[in-house]
């Protein structure tokens, strides 16, 4: 029966190795970092202009320009970065997308979820 246990572990190793091998190509696929700029306009706590689903690659220098019609705080989760918003004035959040993943952003004071930025590895 010991053999069967080893066989089981062997199958497991091969399967996982296969998954890893295919997935590995994804991670090495870095086509060079670039600068990405997005512009969001918020009215009555809703996104009226700009995409709520931002897509960048890991390593990109990201700029998010936000304009709102009330005093607020624009907050990016995970990266924990914020910028204060004043009615009608554009504010910018600039950061290097060093960590991959999907990070939602919101209006902090009213807890209004606006969208998320997906940072592909």
């Amino acid at each position: 029966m010991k053999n069967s246990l080893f066989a089981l572990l062997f199958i497991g190793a091969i399967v996982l190795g296969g998954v890893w091998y295919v997935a590995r190509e994804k991670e090495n696929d870095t086509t060079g970092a670039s600068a990405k700029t997005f512009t969001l306009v918020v009215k009555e706590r809703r996104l009226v202009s700009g995409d709520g689903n931002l897509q960048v690659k890991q390593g990109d220098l990201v700029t998010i320009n936000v304009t709102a019609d009330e005093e607020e705080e624009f907050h990016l989760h995970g990266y924990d970065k914020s910028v204060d918003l004043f009615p009608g004035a554009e504010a910018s959040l600039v950061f290097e997308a060093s960590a991959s993943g999907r990070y939602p952003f919101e209006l902090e004071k009213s807890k209004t979820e606006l969208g998320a930025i997906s940072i592909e590895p």
Partner: protein
Amino acid sequence: MRILYRLVPVVLFVPLLGQAHAFGQQFTLPLPVSFYFIGAAAALIASFAILTLFNEPQRGGRRVGKKVIVAAGLSRAGVVSLRVLGLLWLLLTIVSGFFGAPDYQQNPAVYLLWIVFLLALTYAQALVNGIWQAFNPFRTLAATILGKNHKPLFRYPRGTGFFPALILYFGLISLELLSGGAGAIPEVVAAILLGYVGVSFIGSFLFGTAVWFTYGDLFSVFFGLVGKFAPIQLSSRESMVTPPGERLIEERGVHLTELFFILFALSSTAFDGIMDTEPWMSVMNSHPFLLTHPTLISFFVLLLSPFLFFLLYGLAIYLMRLVVGAGYSFNASLLRFAYSLVPIAIAYHFAHYFQLILTEGQRLIPQLSDPLGKGWNLFGTKFYEYKVGIIGAASGWYLQVGAIILGHIVATYIAHRIALSEFDSKRHVILGQIPMLFLMVCYTVFGLWILSLPYAIGA
């Protein structure tokens, strides 16, 4: 009074506005399609490999490998330390919940419950069974207050099975998913734990400590099932090292409510995964009634979810019995194979929640230095800076697919070993296992599919 006021929404399942999507937010990216297909293919290949590799029937079910006795038993000191740790955990969570900062991010209570107790302890128990049994602060308290000579008032109606634990489990998941974030309010967490101490005491008072913590205490049932998978088994009599899941082969479910407990562990995790995705949102947006009653709809879907998983499981068992004509009842067959689903449930859980330990878990580092929000810096970690991306999206994908495939392999292997011990002929084992194999592949592919769904934008 403020606490009572805040508890009302929990009871009524009315969402508290503005709290959703705050605590427990995941930063994972959906599984790429390539991962999903490779994972599904791997599950299929592994299943058939297991079927062809092991098909000699062994009546009575011999164990794989040898159990190694590592110690005469978990020493008294170890048990006592875990008990003290359990009580400290409970005390800290309740006290900081009631008297700490009202903002959950500045208060360890919410994190001590959901991250430490329900995630970290689950994975620890999946490795070493026996941790929970000693840690269990609710039992320590009830047993201490009642003393050894307490005579239970009633005989527990055995036919009820694990029904009380199942109801409490449903309540806990509702608090997590349907309360609109009430589970992330420190005072609510403290009040619920205090209430649970009371419930445990009353249950023990009425039916006896041993009975309550077998059938009524949701955590003992949950951690008990998880612990049956553990490769290291500690107990006061003998401690052993076995291949993972050996107990899931030797033992069998004792009541249908136990099967439903396992199915609910699976289905509630799956439901949590689906809830925030775009397909779910588009279904919810498709009809005005759905749109205006999201909590009600979610409640019923959550309630029905284990039955949907049961339909598939029941069908597999039914087909298996058609082929092999088992010598015992349909119910007994359902129970005999029930434990083979435990590894899949653990794998679902791990794939969905493990990364929260690395993300949300970090919040505890500064919180524990100042649990009551008084400006203390007990461990010098008050100004710990949160680190983003400890685990990258790609590593997260490997972990998720790896866990689900590994869970699938172990579950298939266990179901197969059970079949080997129950059926007489090679033909029966192979034919009888095909429906079971199909079931496991369905659960696994479904699990992977959920992880690959795009998230809904905003809420």
